[in-house]
């Protein structure tokens, strides 16, 4: 039996393990399969939410398996690392044989392989092979990068070959994959990202990091000179929001940019994105008291923190606080003021005044229904600031990858063989057959086209 000799050297065995394409097929499928987990279980949420969703026991199991931060978990990263080692070892392993194909000392053509090819066409002609030899071999010489004519007993054979170098395509693709992984690694190690809310007219150089909430001082400041919102005609939907941003470095204005979504500012390795916006209320407004029974309204100008007497001297109310998003029994009420009311002779009670729901206070069923009017606002622009040195590498890897796919898919290494042989009936049989790297079916077209050209050449011969 011709059993392949199993090496006992452990280094060899590890090498061979990683040199197998079987491993890469297994790894790719495993990555595909395990990635599903992170799409079924919400990632990086609070423990309380998980316990509510899965129960205590499953929560503990999932936590141990790192399912809550799956793509950052050691085992997922290990799978990726294995894929990388696999790709590198596989490529090195095959480099020498690929090299020999691309730069052969002396190209060998095996007529057998062409005869067995499933991509084969033939026709017959009345002329002798010798009469056709010149024009066919000249055509092949012109059409293919390498060509060679061989005499046969009663005819001839011409080989043509092109695209040897495209065997490098796989290396180009795999290099791009490695580069991509390198870029992603650099992103995750050196990249960071934060936000800055900048009211119109103000300047700031502090951003708050995502995840950690730490503050970072930038070596430049941003100033928001203006902010505007455009709405779609006939609908309340926001069409565009735009901030006029000035970048200030060492006391000098170095850049002005009209910032909108999808068009970030690129500045010295930083990218600044238009992310959100909001309104900061000025602390002045009008309080409106509507009598619950009669609907009679009383208006009073007021400021935050000021004690405002209730109509008829029936107590007082103080607006104490403002929040951009107020959560009431699971509903987000949006921008909301919080007040404390002290009706005479009763204990103080909180009053919630959501700006966008003026009738909200009706629910309290008090003597008055309180709402706010004439609130003065100032816009702030919500900026996102990121620095990610991995991006150029990632994007370059994209370009290389697409190039590599194009080469391997559409320019494969192909060889064509034309035989012209005189048969016993006096006719000449001309056959065209082709083989391509890894039996790519595209060779079918090459054979077909070559045959069409040969037919045309034969016809021209006649006239």
């Amino acid at each position, binding site marked *: 039996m011709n059993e392949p000799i199993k090496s006992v050297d452990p280094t060899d065995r590890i090498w061979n393990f990683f040199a197998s394409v079987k491993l890469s097929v297994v790894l790719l499928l495993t990555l*595909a399969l395990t*990635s599903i987990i992170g799409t*079924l279980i919400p990632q990086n949420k609070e423990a309380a939410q998980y316990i509510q969703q899965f129960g205590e026991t499953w929560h503990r199991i999932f936590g141990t398996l790192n399912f809550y931060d799956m793509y950052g978990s050691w085992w997922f990263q290990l799978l990726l690392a294995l894929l990388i080692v696999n790709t590198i070892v596989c490529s090195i392993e095959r480099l020498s044989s690929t090299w020999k194909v691309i730069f052969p000392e002396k190209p060998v053509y095996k007529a057998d392989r062409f005869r067995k090819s499933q991509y084969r066409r033939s026709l017959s002609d009345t002329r002798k092979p010798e009469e056709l030899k010149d024009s066919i071999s000249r055509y092949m010489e012109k059409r293919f990068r390498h060509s060679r004519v061989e005499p046969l007993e009663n005819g001839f054979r011409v080989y043509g070959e092109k695209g040897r170098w495209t065997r490098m395509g796989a290396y180009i693709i795999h290099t791009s994959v490695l580069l991509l992984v390198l870029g992603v690694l650099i992103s995750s190690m050196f990249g960071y990202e934060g936000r800055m809310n900048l009211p119109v007219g103000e300047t700031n150089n502090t951003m708050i990091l995502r995840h950690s909430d730490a503050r970072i001082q930038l070596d430049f400041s941003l100033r928001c000179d203006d902010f505007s919102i455009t709405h779609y005609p006939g609908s309340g939907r926001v069409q*565009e929001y735009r901030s006029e941003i000035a970048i200030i470095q060492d006391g000098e204005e170095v850049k002005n940019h009209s910032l909108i*979504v999808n068009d970030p500012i690129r500045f010295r390795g930083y990218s600044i994105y238009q992310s959100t916006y909001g309104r900061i209320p000025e602390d002045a407004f009008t309080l409106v008291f509507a009598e619950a029974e009669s609907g009679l309204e009383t208006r009073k100008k007021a400021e935050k923190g000021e004690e405002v007497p209730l109509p008829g001297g029936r107590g007082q109310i103080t607006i104490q606080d403002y929040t951009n998003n107020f959560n009431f029994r699971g509903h987000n009420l949006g921008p909301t003021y919080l007040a404390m009311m002290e009706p005479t002779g009763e204990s103080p009670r909180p009053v919630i005044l959501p700006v966008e729901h003026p009738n909200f206070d009706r629910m309290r069923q008090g003597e008055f229904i309180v709402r706010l009017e004439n609130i003065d606002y100032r816009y702030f622009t919500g900026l*996102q600031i990121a620095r990610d040195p991995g991006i150029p590498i990632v*994007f370059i890897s994209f370009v290389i*990858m*697409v190039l590599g796919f194009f080469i391997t898919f559409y320019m494969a290494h192909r060889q064509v063989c034309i035989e012209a042989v005189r048969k016993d009936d006096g006719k000449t049989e001309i056959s065209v057959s082709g083989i391509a790297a890894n039996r790519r079916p595209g060779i079918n077209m090459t054979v077909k086209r070559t045959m069409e050209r040969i037919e045309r050449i034969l016809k021209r011969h006649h006239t």
Partner: protein
Amino acid sequence: MTDSITIISYVTFIFGISALSYAIGWIFRARWANIAGTTAMVVATLGNLAAFILRWMETYWLGYGHMPLASLYESLIFFSLTIGIIYLYVEYRFRYRVIGFFAGLSAFLALAYASLPSVGSQIQPLMPALQSNWLIIHVMTYFFGYASLTLAFCVSLLFLLKSAGKNPDDGFRAHIPGFRTLDDLTYQLVMFGFLFITLGLITGAVWAEQAWGRYWGWDPKETWSLITWFIYATLLHARLMRGWEGKRLAYISILGFAAMLFTYFGVNLLPGLHSYL
């Protein structure tokens, strides 16, 4: 004046006719039916293109001007269009009409789904994050990829159908192209599809970087498109490096298609929020 939604309802019907004609042509070896199938396919594809362009104009008339690639409804319209285009190209180049039944049926189903009330055919204004040329390139490349992979799936089904019986050359199986042809066609469609879903992933990443400041975020839709990509990468390695063919290749192609469908439709059922589809 007719609107694009009305045209689409005609087009849906014509894709259905086309599938039916191809089916008759296939089972009864009727040449006329095959010709009718091709004619209907051409008419439906052109009609689909017209509806796409008309809808594009309608967005401008409403003052929302954008290429109609920004909602589930609009993507389905574009999906059926790409199926029509790629199928017609395959028929023109390879002259096999059996696949026409599946292609017509797929386009029909896509449009029938689009007509469900839950899909919502109204033209909506674009939110700022979607106003990007990258979105257009992203969606277009993806759907050329999806359509091609859908046809690859159809061819794989034909392969399994042909190999299911005792004799691959009896009855209606006789008209299915040979195993070698089906195998080659699957591979070529997957190759083209893979190239385009790769371009889709890449343009998506470039767009995400511009709009949200990150090129990848493991959101369910992104993750599922990567899963799909991994499966087709597996298929290519199995075919090119390990010489897998036939049924085994057909199974991977079907698996990949299932992942693709889930990426397209199923992700909405999962927790998390992907932009708009």
